[in-house]
């Protein structure tokens, strides 16, 4: 492989990694605050894909993007309210099982409503425009994804570290009861977490599917799992960890495919999960104490 080809694949990998990172943040933030692995997150991402297909059928992209983001947020928050909130004081296993239930429910609902036949993903014309930098050439979305990811992560970190809501989120993630004693409405803070996670999943979905052409009811499963692994790899609960994990998985997966090991690329992700859990269960940037897990 020539250097240009390698760089070309790295670029593709970084772009895929950016989309993964955006989705992985949703897993890590929900885990951070509820100690819940939100198995439905991949399906939220898939539903965002369908929302975009239907929206773009009649509405231009610049209205569709905020509209789809809003619809995905509503879906994410509705799931939290209906399936997780009533189980707030139940054992953690119950809420985990509820999440798995929601995941299958959404998959089956999508199959019922949209059939299992792949639906073509709409093109946002300017995102598909080919750009060249030196010898590298790729569509705009490939360049845009990592840049947008970094900007969004930067804004999110500002929100969490330097605003009152962010401070409340950090407090709630440590101690529900004491947070309430400060006058914080924990349900509101948890909803805000789902708003952010779902919004990033919607944006990740648009960037991801623009390069993939079609959506099926099962399109969320594998990316969802990979992003979950990315979050665990980075240290679940840590936002920078999820971002690094997303990029690592995106790049390695793309390079493995490029080297002809495409059958092996998904297996790699799970191998990474096993190795990480064996040797460093808290992940790259994970909290030391695992008392709440």
């Amino acid at each position: 492989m020539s250097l240009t080809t390698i760089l070309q694949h790295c670029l593709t990998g970084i772009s895929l990694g950016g989309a993964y990172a955006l989705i992985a943040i949703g897993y890590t933030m929900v885990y951070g605050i509820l100690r819940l692995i939100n198995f439905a997150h991949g399906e939220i991402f898939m539903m965002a894909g369908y929302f975009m297909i239907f929206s773009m059928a009649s509405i231009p992209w610049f209205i569709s993007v905020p509209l789809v983001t809003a619809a995905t947020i509503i879906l994410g928050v509705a799931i939290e309210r209906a399936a997780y909130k009533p189980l707030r004081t139940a054992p953690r296993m119950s809420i985990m099982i509820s999440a798995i239930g929601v995941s299958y429910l959404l998959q089956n609902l999508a199959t019922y409503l949209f059939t299992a036949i792949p639906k073509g993903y709409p093109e946002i014309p300017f995102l598909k425009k080919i750009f060249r930098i030196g010898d590298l050439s790729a569509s705009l979305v490939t360049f845009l994804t990592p840049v947008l990811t970094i900007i969004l992560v930067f804004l999110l970190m500002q929100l969490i570290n330097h605003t009152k809501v962010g401070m409340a989120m950090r407090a709630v993630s440590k101690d529900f009861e004491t947070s309430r004693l400060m006058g914080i409405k924990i349900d509101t803070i948890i909803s805000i977490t789902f708003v952010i996670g779902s919004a990033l999943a919607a944006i990740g979905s648009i960037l991801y599917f623009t390069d993939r052409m079609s959506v099926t009811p099962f399109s969320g499963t594998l990316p969802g799992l990979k992003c979950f692994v990315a979050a665990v790899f980075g240290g679940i609960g840590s936002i920078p960890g999820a971002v690094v994990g997303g990029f690592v998985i995106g790049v390695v997966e793309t390079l493995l495919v490029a080297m002809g090991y495409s059958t092996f690329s998904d297996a790699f992700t799970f191998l990474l999960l096993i190795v990480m859990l064996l040797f460093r269960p808290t992940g790259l940037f994970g909290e030391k104490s695992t008392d709440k897990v």
Partner: protein
Amino acid sequence: MLKISDLYVAYGGIEAVKGISLEVPDGAIVTLIGANGAGKSTTLRTICGLVKPKSGSISYLGEEITNVPTEQLVKKGITLVPEGRRVFPDLTVEENLKIGAYLRSGEDLTEDFKWIYDLFPRLKERSWQPAGTLSGGEQQMLAVGRALMGHPKLMMMDEPSLGLAPLVVQGIFDIIKEVHKQGVTILLIEQNANMALRIADYGYVLETGVITMDNTGAALLSNEEVRAAYLGKKRK
């Protein structure tokens, strides 16, 4: 200011509080003493809405608050310094204080910070340190400071002297007196019955969920039974 009548609290089938009645007058220091598992923490947690009572009523400033959510009680001026301090370990000392004033949005907190840092100069030196790295005594100061940031009318404290060196305990009690002097009503739980009864206007003795005695602090302090059970003195 606070009036509890015939309060019952149960966890599942186990009754932890069995029909207690007590009163905290405006501007007083009232203490609740009792052995481990007597139901002291349960009583405070029920007052501030963290635990739902089985029956009975709690009123505050003449208003029924028995099933009012915690966040609203905080807004009305009731605060709890919880058992075991419970500072937010990842937040800095300054952020912990700031979050104590969470409901006072938009207000200028400069004066409040000055007030707290005057009360606890140790906290000022450590304002940028994550609270989890503070010593036990410093965390207790922070927990008290955090509660004060909300401008409480009624401050409830659950064993503020737990696990602290005698000198630090003295310091905490001095602060309680100081805060009281500034007009805050105090409901205090203590294992350290001696110190608590000394500063209290009135005291209640709680035994396995029932109040067995109540009197002024001074009277309880000289009571034979109290001395034998809680002050480690032999009966004559």
